[in-house]
């Protein structure tokens, strides 16, 4: 246990050290807060202007979670389709790769054209940002299912649905959760892109307005909030992952829990 404790202390120290170094270097070289505010200034801004920032943060979180949720549902369905059908794979894969190569900023104006500025384009942008990694991972997971495990089911005369439900999907869970951690952070990127371009609410919009009035500490406060939300979501999914797919990691904690 002392080994893990030491590792934790060391990593925490290094992370704090990064911000301390940032603070000190800014002080040392007299960097103006319009160029790069110090962490202490950013924290102070967060504290004093919290009532103004709070609704925007909530809006961004809400938009991201809705987009992320939609992305998960569509991603799983598409992934299952692609992973279990050769034709669907041949058709959908090139299209997905092409689609994901399009910069999402370019798509936002189209969404705005269709649905008007505001929450809907932000949700949709978040959704399309996170679909790709989920689809690819779910499809890979299904394709990676050992034929031996499928044979076990086939000799029992299991139906396709039973095989998918009892072998395919559980086998895919580690891949799925790995993609969720990537997708969760990508969803934030999608939301903020859309908010920056076409919304009057959300952290993206807040940062846009702040930067146009050279309120750089507020811009950085927005970045801090985004980073914090991203980390929080990542941690939540890591925790769920270790509970659901502990068998793939084979840690001792899981054995005790199972």
């Amino acid at each position, binding site marked *: 246990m002392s080994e893990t404790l030491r590792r934790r202390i060391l990593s925490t120290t290094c992370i704090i050290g990064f911000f301390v170094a940032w603070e000190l270097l800014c002080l040392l070289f007299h960097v103006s807060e319009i160029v790069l505010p110090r962490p202490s200034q950013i924290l102070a801004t967060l504290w004093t202007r919290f009532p103004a920032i709070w609704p925007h943060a909530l809006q961004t979180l809400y938009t991201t979670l809705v987009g992320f949720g939609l992305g998960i549902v569509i991603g799983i369905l598409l992934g299952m389709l692609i992973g279990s059908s050769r034709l669907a794979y041949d058709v959908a894969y090139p299209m997905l790769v092409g689609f994901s190569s399009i910069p999402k900023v370019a798509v936002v104006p189209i969404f705005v054209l269709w649905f008007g500025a505001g929450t809907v384009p932000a949700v949709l942008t978040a959704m399309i940002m996170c679909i790709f990694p989920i689809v690819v991972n779910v499809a890979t997971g299904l394709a990676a299912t*050992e034929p*031996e*495990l499928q*044979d*076990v*089911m*086939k*000799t*029992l*005369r*299991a139906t396709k649905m*039973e095989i998918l439900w*009892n*072998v395919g999907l*559980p*086998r895919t*869970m580690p891949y799925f959760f790995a993609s969720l951690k990537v997708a969760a952070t990508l969803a934030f990127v999608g939301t903020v892109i859309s908010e920056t371009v076409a919304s009057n609410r959300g952290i993206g919009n807040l940062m846009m307005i702040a930067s146009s009035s050279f309120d750089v500490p507020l811009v950085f406060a927005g970045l801090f909030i985004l980073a914090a939300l991203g980390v929080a979501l990542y941690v939540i999914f890591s925790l769920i992952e270790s509970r659901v*797919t502990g*068998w*793939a990691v*084979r840690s001792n904690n899981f*054995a005790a829990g*199972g």
Partner: protein
Amino acid sequence: MNASPAKPAPSGNVIDLEKVRVTFGGDKNQVTALAETSLRIAHGEFVALVGPSGCGKSTILKLVAGTLTASQGYVFVAGREIGADHVRIGMAFQNPTLLPWLNIRDNVMLPLKIVPPFKQAFAEKRKSEYRDRVEASLARVGLAGFGEKFPWQLSGGMQQRASLCRALIHDPTLLLLDEPFGALDQFTREELWEIMQNLWIEKQPTVLLVTHDLKEAAYLASRICVMQARPGRIVDDSVVPFDRPRTIDVSFAPEFVSLTQRLRERIVAARAVQEAAS
């Protein structure tokens, strides 16, 4: 299933391969995995298939298991053509192939969740009757108290025992064994032979065992079919006369040794033919 003569009437045998052929590949580089083969196995027989690698042993097993379709001929299991039936089949593979996300109990219970008539009552009985059934089955193979463990927490031999439990939990009429003891050490193997034999004596399922091990075949089976490769076919079919229950001591008896010796010679000859052909 094309270009075959008139469909024969199904007989009373559990397994009935009628002039079955299996080929892989297209017209140009076609490989015959199994030349025209007929094999009949009666109810309650314990048949071992032995032979060199690539002789089509596993092909026959897969045909009966339904994971492979014959290119020609008919495969009957329990008097019905394969695929359209509800014969209860249990199968154990060379690897334990336990599902890594389920604990041992749930792994062994899997067939009860899939196979009728057990699956209809799965939701209500999984915590009571089925659970007891699994525990009893685990206890028989020396795995009492391991139900909560996950496959990776068990040794290879223990996993293989659990896999045997899974193959037998739904009282299959037909048990297919694809070298299930092959990857185990000598002592574990002999221990599992004994367990296997007891299970067979008790429930009398029809068993089709694929193995490389002649001693294993002679110890367990009541009939041994020797196969030869290129193309795969059955070249010898002999009855094993020893009384049951057999013990490991039987394997040192002169009749036993001469039987395995004779089988060995057949296989060596088969291999020689095979090498000359290649």
